């Protein structure tokens, strides 16, 4: 049995480094933004007067720090 072609070490990677970098930034940004929206949507507590108005339909007469 003989080797048809000797394996060679590639001179360059199959994908460029910047492709992985862009994909990583895109996926990371999408995931973290989605997580933030999900946490905000699932938060069962009031935080701002706009939320109070939207959920209860009553005017917020004062918001105190």
């Amino acid at each position: 049995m003989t080797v048809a072609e000797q394996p060679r070490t590639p001179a360059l990677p199959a994908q460029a480094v910047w492709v992985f970098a862009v994909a990583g930034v895109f996926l990371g940004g999408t995931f973290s933004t989605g997580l933030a929206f999900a946490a905000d949507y699932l938060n069962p507590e009031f935080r701002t007067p706009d939320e109070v108005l939207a959920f209860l339909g009553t005017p917020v007469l004062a918001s105190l720090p």
Partner: protein
Amino acid sequence: MSTRPDLLEQALAGDIFEGEIPEPQTAISREAEPWDPERFGQEQIRSLVRQIFLPGWPKPARQVVFCAVEDGDVAEICLRVGQSLASQIPGTVALVETHLPAFGGEEEYGPTPVFRPGTFSPLREAARRVSGHLWRVPREAFLGENESGLSAEWLPGRLRELRLEFDYTILHGPPAALCGDAALLGYLSDGVILVLEANSTRRAAAQRTVQLMQATNARLLGSVLNRRRFPIPEGIYRRL
């Protein structure tokens, strides 16, 4: 004692705001001053008082119940509203404890009078002066002989007494989601203001409370969002 028309006339004439209206601020001076949470809170309270108690609201209220949904520091808000209201009007203002001692004890306002069964003591005599024409009505004085709690049998009469004795009444009510007394107070008074704790009060509980108020025909005047956080940095927030 001043009457309601007196208060309205003086308010409309602007007499009662003497010394209260701040100097108009220019854009330069506003930028120079750092944002002060305490002053912001005072402005919010003053705005609430003018919306609810003074002419401008569709129907100015004289007896208002402040109550939390589940838990919260309602007493401090009642006290601040009372102080602000008392500073803006010449009439008397009463802070009433309806379910728990809330506005300080004997060390602050003197001993609470003892109520003997079978005797009647006017609420005004039982009240303790907090400052100026701001008075505190202790829980014992409000309940009188009805120590078992609030009841539709005697509560209308007691609220009527308060109307006769004081120009304005601020009632510190029980948590609305935990106790039906808040709805009863809201039905018999001029309205209820819900105190919501930011990052604490659950939306579902607040919605149930609003539905309860509507079901009992209690007039819900609005809400106060307490302990609100401002996560935006001060420098950016001032520019918004």
